[in-house]
Structure formats: C-alpha cells, structure tokens
C-alpha cells in the first residue's frame, strides 16, 4: 500500500494500462507536454511518447469522434475532457456513436473507450468549470457511468474502466484530486469489487444516505455530526451510476426504512430521482417516510461566491435526515 492523492492514483492507473497494452492510448487537450491542466497525465507522454499520449486539436467532438475510429481499428482510447462543462460539443459523438455502435452492429464493433471527466464544483471556478452532467449519460443506454470518491477506487476503477469492452464515462471529482489515501497498486483488478457495485462506506441503522463522488465525504461528515445527536446514518457510495447496484441500496433501505439521496447535480430528472423511483418500487413496504433528495438547485451552476448556497452541504443533509426521521427540523414545511 502506498499513500497517494487521487490525482496520482489516476495517473498510476493510466501508466499501468499504457504499459500493459500497447493498444491503449490517452488523448485530449493539453495532456501531453503539460500533463493536463490537473496534471493527471503528468509524465505519461515523456514515458510513452506522443503517439500514445496524444495532444489533440481543440475540439471535443473531434476527440471523441477520432477515438471511435481508433476503437474501430482495435485501440482502447482513454479520452480526457478538460472540464465537465466542455463535454457538450462531444455529446453527439458520445450519444449517437460511442453509446450505440455496439448495439447498432450487433456486437461486432466494440467501443472500449474511457471518457475521463474532471467533474463538479466546490473549487471556486469560473462558469462551465463545475458542472455535474452525469444524469445525461446515465439516461443514455449503451454507456456505463461511474464516479469515484477516493484514491483506491480511482486507481482500481479506472483500470477496470479501461479494461471494459464497453464505453465508460468516468467522473473524477476535482475537489478530491488532492485528497490522499492508501492505494494498493499491485492488487489484481480481477480481485477487486467489480466497477458496477456500490459500497457501504459507513454502517448505520436509522437512515440510509445514498451518494457518490465528492459528496461521499460530505455525507460521511454528516454521519459524524448525526452521531453526536444519537442518529445513526448508513452511507452508501454508489460508485457506479449506470448500472446502479440496487441490491446493495435496497438491502440497506430495507433495514433502515428511511433514505436520503444527495448529489451536486440538478434535481429534476437527476440520478437522485432515479434512485428514489427505483427504491420506492423495490422497497415500498419497508419505507417509513418519503425518500428525500438533497441536491444542487435547478439552476445553472452559480458564480463561485454563491456556490456554497448551491452545493448540498452537511447542514442540508442533516435537515433532510431530520425530515425523514419526522423530527422537527427547525424548518417549517412548504407544500406545493
């Protein structure tokens, strides 16, 4: 085990994939000489050369579209989108090509493309640099979508994503790039939990809090604070957003009977809506209270000085916990 940041763990995963399989390549804007604006590809170009770690012209549709062509030729491209808000020019290639080619060709053409996206807010950035577009991809059949929350998962799941014969949209919470943790670089990825499984990151008995990405940290903080008040929160890190591991989530909800889902992304038709709709279907008779969402508002990502009022923080999670427990939350109810 080695202690390292999430950023370094991601670099290590790509280094390993590049070393193991010469059909793997990394492509994106500024990822070569500069090592990426977050330095996640730092050193890879000098180690593997510009043919395998490829600086691309400034055009996201071009990047993903050429990655599709490379996949046709048997390559396994790892694409870096510089920031979450810059993935939309590539949306057509992702939705109409990357997601659909395997189905279209009855499995003849594989699309083992990993699309890495530095993701979400809380870093005081300019407009378009803090978005949470994951629901768009979850709603798109043919893609797998994962979001990591710690260095070990970052390492293991990125290797699993690269190894997958399906396209994977891989969300990296930028506010955790510098968060440190122990990483086992030598473990066999076949021994690790499959990419598609959720993980109970804290056991508890009163309320199940379902989340993913950097929000896992916030949820764990909320669980600590709740403990002081004698409330026991179970926190689940979804890890995979498509598919969602409902086995793990439902098992927890059947025990606690109460659920709060939290994410930074907008609320309407977000991942939280999906989780609640599915859990309500699967666990209806176990539910003691309506499942609640604690999410970003349905607004464009606000200016940096306002993001604290947008991001669902510990207090907002605890407020929802109070409400699912039927405790006076200090906040009177507003009804529609």
């Amino acid at each position, binding site marked *: 085990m080695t202690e390292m940041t999430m950023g370094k763990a991601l670099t290590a995963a790509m280094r390993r994939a590049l070393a193991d399989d010469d059909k793997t390549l990394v492509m994106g804007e500024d990822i070569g000489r500069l090592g990426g604006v977050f330095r996640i590809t730092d050193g890879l170009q000098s180690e593997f050369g510009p043919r395998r770690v490829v600086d691309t012209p400034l055009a996201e549709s071009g990047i993903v579209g050429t990655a599709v062509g490379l996949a046709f030729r048997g390559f396994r491209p790892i694409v870096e989108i510089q920031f979450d808000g810059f993935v939309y020019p590539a949306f057509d290639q992702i939705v109409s090509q990357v997601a*659909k080619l395997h189905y279209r060709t009855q499995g003849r053409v594989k699309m083992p493309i990993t699309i890495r996206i530095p993701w979400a807010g809380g870093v005081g950035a300019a407009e378009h640099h803090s978005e949470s577009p994951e629901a768009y991809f979850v709603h798109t059949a043919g893609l797998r979508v994962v979001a990591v929350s710690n260095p070990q998962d970052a390492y293991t799941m990125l290797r699993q994503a690269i190894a997958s014969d399906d396209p994977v949209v891989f969300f990296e919470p930028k506010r955790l790039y510098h968060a440190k943790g122990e990483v086992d670089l030598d473990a066999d990825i076949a021994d690790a939990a499959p990419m598609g499984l959720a993980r109970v990151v804290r056991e508890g008995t009163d309320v199940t809090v379902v989340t993913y990405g950097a929000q896992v940290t916030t949820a764990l903080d909320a669980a600590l604070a709740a403990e002081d008040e004698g409330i026991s929160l179970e926190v689940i890190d979804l890890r995979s957003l498509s598919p969602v591991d409902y086995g793990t989530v439902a098992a927890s909800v059947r025990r606690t009977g109460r659920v709060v889902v939290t994410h930074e992304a907008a609320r309407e038709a977000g991942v939280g809506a999906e989780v609640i709709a599915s859990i309500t279907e699967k666990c209806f008779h176990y539910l003691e209270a309506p499942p609640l969402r604690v999410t970003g508002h349905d607004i464009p990502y606000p200016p940096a000085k306002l993001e604290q009022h947008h991001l669902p923080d510990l207090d907002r999670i605890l407020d929802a916990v109070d409400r699912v427990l039927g405790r006076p939350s200090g906040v009177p109810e507003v009804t529609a």
Partner: protein
Amino acid sequence: MTDTLTPAAALASDTEDVARLLDHEGCRVRDERLDPWAADVDAPMLRQVYRDMFLSRRLDAEGVALQRQGHLGLWAPAQGQEAVQVGTAWACHDDDFLFPSYREIGIEVVRGVQPKDFVMVWHGAQHASWNPFDVHVANPQIIIGAQSLHAVGYAMGIQRDGGDQVAVAYFGDGATSQGDVNEAMIFAASYGVPVVFVCSNNQWAISEPVQLQSRTPISHRAPGFGIPSLRVDGNDVLACIAAMRWAADHARSGRGPAYLEAVTYRVGPHTTSDDPTRYRDADEVAHWKARDPLARVESYLRSLGAFDDAFAQTLTADADRFTAAMRSAVVGAGAPEPLRVFDQVYAEPHSGLDEQRARFAVYLDGFSGGAAR
C-alpha cells in the same frame, strides 16, 4: 504572402469546372494530373468496373421497387452516383477501410456486400447488416458527417500500427457544413494521417441546393486546411478511379490526407419519402439524366470494342440473380424475436438492463399463459 484577399471567383454551382478523362460522349480526353493514374486501366478492368456500376443501378432500382411494394420502410436511391462510388472503391486496396454514409451502394457492391445486407436495414430488421471487418466497410452512417471523424481516427490507428492501408470518409455536399467534417480535416491535417475525404457533391442536400452550403466549390476548402484536393467529374468513372488513386497514393505514402470533390447528381428523390418536384425543375433532372455515368463508360467501352450484347446479357443475368436474392431476403423475413431488443446493448453484463430483460421475458411469458387482454 499568399493572397487570400480575393478568393477565387469559382462558383459551387459551376459543375463543368472539373477534371475529367471521359467527356460527355464517352470520348477519352487528356488531363495531365489524372492521366498518369489511369494509364493501366484497360478494357477488361473497365468492364468489371462497369459491371459493378450496372449492378449498383439495378440493385438501387430493386430497392426502390421493394420499398414501393411495402417490403422496405425507406430507400435512399443512388441513381446517377454510380461512377464516383464504384470508381473510388475500385481505386482502393481491399483492406483500405471505407466509412460510407447511407447512400454509398456502389462501394459496397465493389466490396462484395451480399444481397440481403443491402435490404435488412431498410426492411427495419437491423440497424446494421454486414460485418464491417469482413468487407472493410463500416456500416452506413445516418448522422450527417459523423463518420468523417471515425475515418480520421481509424487512420490515426493505421499510422500507429505502421499499416499501409488508408481510411476513406465518404459524405455528401450537405455534410460539409457540419462541424464534424471540418474537425475531421483539422485532425487529419494536424497528424498527417492516411485518410482520403470523398465528398459526393450531388448538388442537393434533400431540398437544399449546394449553393446554400457553399458559395465556392467545396474542393476549395481543403487546401486552407493544408490538404490537397481535386474536383473531379463524378459521373466519369475513369476520372474517379484516377483521382482516387492519386488521393490514396498521396495518403498511403505518408504525405497526409487528400480530398476529392466528385461533382455528380442525385437523379432520384432524396429517399423514397421525398418529393423532389417541390424543389427542383424537371429540366435540371433531364440535363443530368443525359449525363448518365453508365452510358458514358458504355460508349467508351463500345469505342474500344469491349461492349457487346453477350456482355450485356451476362450483366443482366447477374443482376437478376442479385436482385432476386435481395427480394427473397425481405419477402421471406420472419418477425424478429422480441427479446432481441435487449441484445448487445453492452458487451458485458449490466445489472440494470439485465433485470429489465428478465422482467420483460417474464411479462412476455405471461401472454403465452393467456394472461394478456
């Protein structure tokens, strides 16, 4: 400094400003750029080329007929575009990888795509029919221009593998307006990859004349991106072969991408759903029908003494067999198995979809038990 202040006065609409080797009457004319690339094209070879053009024509007519008779949901006729399709494909090596749009019937004929594979998609049974790796032709692309980037990416792969193939992106005049087609030129030029762009300028993008997409000839765009281009008579199969040989050789020999604009005409409707009388004149269609690409090469072959009734009969017999096979593929097609809707969405298990599939299977089973209303 290069003068870019006064763009060339040529117009997109000037369809005579093209390189050609056979004139409208099928007489061989000289073109110093193209001649070297056509030197070894002899009558026996041209007869084979003609055979593929003839088969494309017949196949296309059968597609239209099958659609009219209700066996296909739609058909996108290629009549009039046989020369550019067949000629450019003939100029390629067998393992050059072609990325067509939905209208490139001719290249698929050249590559030996089977009769049923021309109809199963329009029949509605499949989204893609042949195995692209068998014939080195990707399945037809419907999203306008998207395949141009795939071809460039494939060519990046060739470059990395040290392969001696080229990738070819086929698209229409309308497609040149899409960002993707322009980004494809940019990536191709930046990396100097072995890709050839073939724009079949058939004068129309559904109801929109090419002048709406471009005031200048489309071939003029490529040089600005550092890509040499040639504007060729797309109804002259000899010129198409020669031009594509030049372009493929350019790309194959490591000199980077090349670009062809083939000036041709869509004689039929955009698809069988289209009514072109709403937007274009009968005169224009008549003008182009008189420039039929098959007639032109037939004249030339006759002038070489290489076209006789026996040849024509063989072709007809071949085409009859081919179109009969197309017909029987759809006429005999049974309804597909319902659960096939779930097949191959993913290459690996996906718990969410697997559960949906299982539920749906149980639901369908319910009907066999008589539960349905």
